[in-house]
């Protein structure tokens, strides 16, 4: 029954990989993944919040009264989100502008609150770090994959931190549907379908 710390970490990478297995936190998944770079930026911001809030909530789990626990969790999470917001504004301003609305919305990202409620409030600090790290990396990987697929199909080119270029050559007609709003839903649905095939 008791899982090792390594298992807590790896479950976030495939068995319970956040946006696919646990259908939580879909808004940033759909909203910011027009390029791989945005996906990675959003994923890392969420990972930071996830790990920090997991640590603090796990450390305070015996002090927080159960009746007001959700409110306490939200305040802790919101604090770290403001930290991310201010740091990003100072050091990664272009990314801050592209992610825009979705940074304050990490507060209400169901994954962060979900992990706080389902895991960090019941487990020790080390296990909570492992859980947060695994879930965060899984989330980042999913965002990067979805962003990469949409970028390549939707624009015909691929850029990652200044490197890259055309993927299919200049005669390729970009499949613009994929990069627009409806394409995000369809892409995510088809990716989930492919993952189900490998069950």
């Amino acid at each position, binding site marked *: 029954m008791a899982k090792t710390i390594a298992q807590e970490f790896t479950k976030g990478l495939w068995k319970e990989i956040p946006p696919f297995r646990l*259908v*939580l*936190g*879909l*808004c*940033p998944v*759909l*909203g910011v993944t027009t390029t791989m770079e945005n996906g990675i930026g959003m994923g890392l911001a969420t990972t930071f919040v996830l790990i920090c809030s997991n640590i603090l909530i796990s450390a305070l789990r015996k002090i927080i009264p159960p009746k007001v626990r*959700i*409110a306490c969790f*939200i*305040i802790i999470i*919101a*604090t770290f*989100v*403001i930290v991310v*917001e*201010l740091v990003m504004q100072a050091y990664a301003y272009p990314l801050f502008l592209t992610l825009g*609305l979705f940074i*304050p*919305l990490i*507060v*209400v*990202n*169901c994954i962060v*609150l979900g992990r706080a409620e389902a895991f960090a409030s019941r487990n020790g600090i080390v296990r909570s770090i492992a859980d947060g790290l695994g879930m965060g990396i899984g989330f980042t990987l999913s965002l990067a994959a979805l962003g990469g697929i949409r970028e390549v199909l939707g624009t015909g080119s691929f850029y990652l931190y200044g490197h890259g270029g055309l993927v299919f050559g200049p005669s390729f007609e970009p499949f613009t549907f994929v990069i*627009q*709003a*409806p*394409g*995000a*839903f*369809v892409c*995510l*649905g*088809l990716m*989930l*379908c*492919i993952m*189900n*095939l490998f*069950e």
Partner: protein
Amino acid sequence: MSEMGYFQIIISCIFVNNILLAKFLGNCPFLGTSRKMETAVGMAMAVVFVLVLAGAITWIIYHYFLVPFDLVYLRTIAFILVIAALVQFVELFLKKSIPVLYAGLGIFLPLITTNCAVLGACVINIDEELSFMKSLFASFGFAVGFGLALILFAGVRERITLARVPKPLQDTSIGLVTAGLIALAFFSFNGMV
């Protein structure tokens, strides 16, 4: 958005900038509560109720507390606390005074705290620098747009349960593809306002 008339704001928020399908906010309840029509209607009503109130209160908090005291960077934490408190308050109020409505909305009210459509709409109202009345109209428009998309989606999803869907595509997967097609339909409103 700030130079639009009231009617244009409502139309734009319901159709063109639909909060679920164009802005991608509030997708967890969109997929979570759309399996049955009843739950979808309950969620839609609860969102309309809370979002309009939250839009008004966060606007007042932002312009009369955060801006004068130079605390704008605390916006996120202030708004989420206001929304959480508001949801609790509404829940208590409804339980005492309108039990019928409470029985209908019941379980959906607490879920709204973590519905990013509510926080998102409040932040959009502030970012677009809308006046108080306009942000009320915009909140209402966003909430109705949320309800409309959710109820349409629930209708389609109820039909899908009767269809024979390939095994890997079942449930959430086909749900997402369906949502994509509904989003495509809403996409055709682009350029209307």
